């Protein structure tokens, strides 16, 4: 019985998911006795799923093969799929890569980060189930299987948010997440039920084949429900205050998972829904609707994040505004838009993960996250400060980092869309994107000044740098931050183009599952790949060479010009501690502790927007019933709009 390796690849997706779930089960069994055994089990399961998914890159991404795995070998019988299947095409593998890398990094981080906490067995069991369900959602080819994974994902995330129940606000945040999260899940369930009632099948490929030609109002209602359901998973506009409450109290590694990975599942759901199932992204209403939601959530969340007092709440709002970027660009419907969105989704997971881990490191070292009392930590925690600067620079889109590469493509996409359609709405979108990027930069400078620079609060005088074990995953993410920024064309060529082609290539997706020619029988237009060409140019390597050469030139001139003993005097010994020469200038006073940070920054901007901020302050009341009200209102509005315009 020769063992031909070629079709063994088909089993890799299910093996990856199973290794995570199995890891959860085994670690809860064996983890009671010793931490070392539990950690190795967790590490092994994460490693296996990482290796398996990485092994899938060559066949799926580079060769464009679509792997189909029918659970229990229930192949479709004469064109009717009734079995449950995993379908891995370039798009789902792209998201699977993001998930697996994020899971591995946050798992390794939590080995050291959670050292202060107890009952870690529950933590790792829930953590592995969360990662398994997220991987399952992304790889699954069956609609109801996606719903099951959404359920597991939501409930494990809720449980993990409340893991540190001694924090004030932890249970409340988890409760809010539970209520509104289940509201989102039920709207997904209703959507699936409606589709199932019409299509009598749950397989994505078959629904995608039958649905475009099917004209009945039920389908429109299903679209509204599914869209709002996935939107709530991605914490888009009306659901965004929930994210802040959930993140502020969750442990940092879980915040990384929620903001880096869960939101991406919502985005994956929306892409599948609009591009693969309904293939209606070319209708102008759907473009306006999706882009509108994206722009609103992008702008509202960045202004909300602007004057937060808690480090993690600020990061939470920013992660929603970055997801808003992704949704805005995906809503454009153009190939460049899709690849820009996917690139930004990947970058967002990386730099947002890095920022959440630095927040965790600061909390781990100082115990507080309040921007008004922290300050001057860069002297005590130089490593974390450097990491934070890399993360902040890449999220606000400064050139050498990956944030800039994807944001640059986003501006290209939105402006080109405006150019093609000659429609002023997309110009407003492009302007909103650019302004949001500046506001993101502003809020991260606020965080940098109030947490890392300025003067050290005496309360945190003896904070020490976090252990190396926590910083290694952060350095991995930091390296990932810089690499795509320097070689965006490589990333575009290897990762983004196949994923974009796969996302737009619905007939390919259908034929892979249901046998070739199946899509043609339902008169689905064959897919012609759209050409991506850019209206500007950006060669990061050239930019970096110039920057380095100019820096060298400046240093040479400085050395040449400066006298031999370039008198850079700084405080050497401790006894010069009282030497006023090195005190910062307080117009003569002794330099007392007066940290300029937190809420006393950007007075001019806040003063001009005070009415808007007070309105937003009242609107985000923090009461669960308000949030559920916003959720149901969103569903109602979506229903009305879809029925009228779709």
């Amino acid at each position, binding site marked *: 019985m020769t063992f031909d390796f070629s079709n063994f690849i088909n089993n890799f997706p299910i093996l990856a998911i199973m290794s995570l779930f199995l890891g959860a089960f085994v670690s809860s069994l064996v983890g009671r006795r010793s931490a070392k055994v539990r950690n190795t089990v967790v590490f092994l399961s994460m490693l296996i799923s990482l290796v398996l998914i990485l092994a899938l890159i060559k066949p799926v991404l580079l060769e464009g093969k679509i792997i189909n795995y029918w659970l229990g070998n229930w192949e479709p019988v004469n064109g009717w799929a009734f079995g449950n299947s995993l379908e891995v095409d370039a798009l789902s593998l792209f998201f699977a890569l993001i998930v697996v890398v994020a899971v591995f990094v946050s798992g390794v981080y939590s080995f050291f980060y959670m050292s202060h906490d107890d009952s870690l067995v529950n933590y790792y069991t829930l953590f592995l189930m969360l990662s398994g369900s997220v991987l399952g959602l992304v790889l699954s080819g069956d609609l109801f299987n996606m719903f099951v994974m959404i359920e597991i994902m939501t409930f494990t995330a809720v449980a993990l948010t409340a893991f540190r129940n001694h924090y004030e606000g932890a249970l409340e945040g988890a409760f809010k997440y539970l209520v509104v999260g289940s509201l989102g899940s039920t709207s997904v369930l209703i959507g699936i039920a409606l589709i199932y009632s019409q299509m009598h099948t749950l397989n994505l490929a078959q629904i995608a084949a039958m649905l475009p030609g099917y004209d009945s109002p039920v389908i429109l209602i299903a679209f509204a429900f599914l869209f709002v359901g996935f939107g709530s998973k991605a914490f888009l506009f009306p659901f965004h205050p929930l994210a802040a409450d959930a993140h502020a109290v969750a442990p940092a590694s879980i915040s990384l998972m929620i903001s880096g990975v869960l939101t991406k599942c919502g985005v994956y759901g929306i892409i599948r829904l609009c591009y693969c199932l309904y293939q209606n992204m070319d209708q102008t209403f759907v473009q306006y609707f999706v882009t509108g939601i994206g722009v609103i959530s992008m702008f509202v969340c960045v202004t909300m994040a602007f004057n937060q007092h808690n480090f993690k709440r600020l990061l939470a709002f920013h992660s929603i505004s970055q997801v808003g970027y992704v949704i805005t660009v995906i809503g454009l419907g153009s190939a460049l838009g899709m690849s820009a969105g996917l690139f930004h989704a990947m970058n967002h997971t990386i730099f947002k993960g890095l920022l959440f881990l630095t927040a965790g490191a600061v909390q781990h070292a100082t115990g507080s996250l309040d921007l008004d009392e922290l300050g001057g930590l860069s002297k005590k925690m130089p490593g974390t400060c450097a990491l934070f600067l890399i993360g902040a620079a890449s999220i606000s889109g400064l050139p050498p980092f990956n944030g800039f590469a994807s944001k640059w493509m986003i501006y290209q996409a939105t402006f080109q869309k405006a150019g093609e359609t000659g429609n002023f709405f997309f110009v407003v979108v492009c302007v909103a994107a650019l302004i949001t990027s500046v506001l993101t930069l502003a809020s991260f400078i606020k965080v940098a000044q109030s947490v890392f620079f300025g003067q050290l609060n005496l309360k945190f005088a003896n904070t020490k740098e976090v252990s190396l074990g926590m910083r290694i995953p952060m350095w991995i993410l930091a390296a990932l931050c810089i690499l795509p920024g320097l070689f965006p064309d490589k990333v575009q060529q290897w990762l983004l183009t196949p994923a974009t082609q796969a996302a737009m290539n619905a007939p390919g997706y259908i034929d892979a599952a249901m046998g070739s020619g199946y899509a043609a029988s339902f008169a689905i237009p064959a897919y012609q790949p759209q050409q991506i060409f850019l209206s500007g140019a950006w060669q990061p390597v050239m930019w970096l060479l110039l920057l380095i050469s100019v820096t060298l030139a400046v240093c040479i001139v400085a050395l*040449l*010009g400066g*006298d031999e003993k370039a*008198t850079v005097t700084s405080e050497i010994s401790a006894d010069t501690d009282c030497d*006023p020469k090195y005190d910062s*200038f307080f*117009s003569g006073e002794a330099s007392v502790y007066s940290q300029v940070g937190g809420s006393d920054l950007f007075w001019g901007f806040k003063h001009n927007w005070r009415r808007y901020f007070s309105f937003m302050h009242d609107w985000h009341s923090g009461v669960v019933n308000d949030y559920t009200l916003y959720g149901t209102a969103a569903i109602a509005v979506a229903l009305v709009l879809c029925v009228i315009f779709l």
Partner: protein
Amino acid sequence: MFQRMIDKSMAKSPWIFHINAGSCNGCDIELVSVLTPRYDAERLGFRLTGTPRQADIVVVSGPVTSQTKDRLVRTLAQVPEPRVVVSLGSCPRSGNVFKGSYCVDGPLEKYTHVDVSVGGCTPKPEAIMAALAKASEILAEKRKEMRQA
């Protein structure tokens, strides 16, 4: 060659930082009037800076009262090397009419070496201009000594 240019430019762009050690503001107004169009110290490169860190010439006016003493000493310490101290009017040099009062802590000489002094109870702007011009020459020499040392 470059060093000599720097020495020369030291004299050409001396920046002033003004410390009011309890003066009656007569000298302060005269000092600022030096920057007005009529006397225009800027044509010699003088410029008023806000921080001692970027100061070359420190102009002190007023008899060093006890309140301003430690602030004066701290600010003077924060001025980077080649610096020149100019005392404006008679008060810093001797305490003028306030000599011997309980709240005046003696002449400026006690705290730092005063390079150039301008006499006069509110000296005329031309006198201040001449003093500042002299101070900038001293500044260039100090830079040269600092370099050779």
